[in-house]
């Protein structure tokens, strides 16, 4: 075999190896997104659940006074679990610990509470964002929620029952839906609301899916 033939052979072989390697890396990235990110989020949720159970235990002699004290407490630090969210429409076992904060690191652990919004149960609008794809995808099927569906938010001192009022698709810049009275900057809140936020379409980000709910009931203390 002549030298030029060998050179061509070597080049083609090198190119083929490079392309196969790129393909393998892309496949691994897909694996990372749809499997590994879920595994990591599940592990984070496990830790958060334990921490949250401990917090709830500490607040166990829950009285109205304790609840009031908790409500008056300073804002929780970023990344800590603040409440347990349950939405029966998304499954009997559907339960997530909501963390404080909505930057990438917090949303990797679970649904995140917008720090500038009301705390769950408080007057105003408690807003929570969650992944719709990858990282455990807590809000994957948020579009299935219908008006009247209950949403339970359990803090260490109380359980709040919200009822879904409506869904909407908005532009990613429409921060108005997070206001104490959604889309009414001047209005004073007279109701306690909950707003869930996720991306839309599910594997895209051109819009945001918004679910609004109103507080309808509240039980102090532990409720299972």
């Amino acid at each position: 075999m002549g030298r030029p033939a060998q050179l061509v052979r070597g080049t083609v072989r090198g190119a083929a190896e490079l392309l196969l390697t790129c393909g393998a890396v892309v496949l691994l990235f897909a694996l990372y997104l749809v499997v590994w990110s879920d595994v990591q989020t599940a592990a984070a949720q496990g830790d958060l659940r334990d921490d949250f159970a401990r917090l709830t235990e500490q607040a166990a002699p829950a009285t109205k006074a304790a609840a009031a004290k908790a409500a008056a407490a300073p804002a929780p630090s970023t990344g800590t679990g603040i409440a347990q969210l349950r939405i029966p429409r998304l499954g009997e076992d559907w339960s997530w610990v909501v963390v404080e904060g909505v930057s990438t690191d917090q949303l990797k652990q679970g649904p995140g509470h917008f720090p500038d919004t009301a705390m769950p149960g408080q007057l105003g609008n408690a807003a929570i964002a969650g992944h719709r794809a990858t990282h455990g995808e807590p809000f994957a099927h948020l579009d299935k929620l219908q008006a009247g569906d209950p949403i339970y938010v359990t803090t260490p001192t109380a359980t709040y029952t919200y009822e879904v009022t409506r869904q909407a698709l908005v532009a990613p810049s429409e921060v108005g839906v997070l206001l104490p009275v959604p889309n009414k900057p001047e209005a004073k809140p007279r109701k306690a609301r909950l707003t869930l936020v996720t991306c839309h379409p599910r594997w895209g980000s051109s819009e945001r899916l918004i679910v609004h709910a109103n507080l309808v009931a509240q039980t102090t203390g532990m409720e299972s």
Partner: protein
Amino acid sequence: MYTALWRVLPGPTPVKVLLAVLLALAAVAALFLWAFPALEPLLPFDKIVLEAPPADGTSATG
């Protein structure tokens, strides 16, 4: 590329195989621990919060 790597690996064939597997695992670990988390923000999947447009100047809740 891989032929050259194989030639560089020392020892008899079983040792070479072991080393090659270790190298591959190290490469995959590096991808999962550093490369992929760095690439992830380029995809739309973690763009889920609402943000005021930059010109607005209000606090961006993202």
